């Protein structure tokens, strides 16, 4: 699959270091705000990270939107290097179109629809 050993060693870097794309919580009391962050898995959730690739604001704005910002090139870069992705991030990226829609998102939507029907 890969052209030479040197190149593949470079790209297994993220896997060896257990690098993860996850949300780091910020904001203040009763006002959460998440940063989409590339970090070593063993670091604290809100601690030092490698790179900031976006944000997610769970509080709806004046239009009723919960905004998500995403650095698509950065995410492609890290996914290509073997970084793992947490569930909330996977779900949000699925909704955004970078990854496919997560099965649980679809199932949750179906359940909600069944309940309301």
């Amino acid at each position, binding site marked *: *699959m*890969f*052209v030479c050993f040197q*190149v593949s060693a*470079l*790209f297994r870097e993220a896997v060896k270091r257990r690098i993860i794309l996850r949300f780091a919580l910020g904001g203040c009391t009763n006002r959460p705000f998440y940063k989409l962050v590339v970090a070593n898995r063993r670091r604290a959730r809100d601690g030092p990270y490698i790179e900031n690739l976006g944000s997610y604001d769970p509080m709806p704005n004046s239009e009723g939107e919960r905004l998500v910002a995403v650095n698509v090139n950065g995410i*492609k*870069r890290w*996914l*290509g*290097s*073997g970084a793992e992705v947490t569930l909330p991030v996977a779900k949000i990226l699925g909704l955004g179109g970078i*990854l*496919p829609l*997560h*099965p*649980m998102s*679809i*199932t949750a939507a*179906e359940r909600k629809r069944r309940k309301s029907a």
Partner: protein
Amino acid sequence: MAALLAVARRLSPTLLHQEPTFVQAVRGRKRRTDPKAKSKVDLIRDPILIDAVETLVLNERYTWYKVIVEALRREFRAERVKQYQQHLLSLQNSAKEDTEEYSRLLAENAAENARLARARVERLVEEQKEKTEQTLLNMKSQAEKEEAERKEREEQVKVLKEESKSFITFENLDECIEEALKDDKCYNFAINRKGQIIKRTRSQ
């Protein structure tokens, strides 16, 4: 099976679990070996009912999801490989360009140096010429000066020679004394700075 267990649990709660009901309230986070809390002793938890159809559909969705995500990862990886290779190629090209640029600059530098050298040589030749001309002029003027001095000295000598005819020597000393005594000129007067005689001081 799960339903049967749930019924059995309801009938005889203490029958099925052999733990002591409670010995002492546990403080802090409960461990695996700690006994159940007082409030939870008679609690019977019902298992979450699973929809079989939904589960089947969900599992299939998961398999497809994993396949697609893995495929996407490989695609991104391939993109990075391509970028890396292009980067290496660009480095090589830039190295070639750098060497060409370097040799061009060297040639330019050499040409400039040659030009400056030619200019310098010309300048030096000019300077040498000027120098020699100047030295010749100096020598000429020096010679003229010396000539003039020599002539002046000769003139002085000539004049002195003429004057020496009226000098008082041992031979004509007596004669000159006699002549001076005969002369009646009076030099007994004062003069100012301009050399004019102050008439009042002239004695008769």
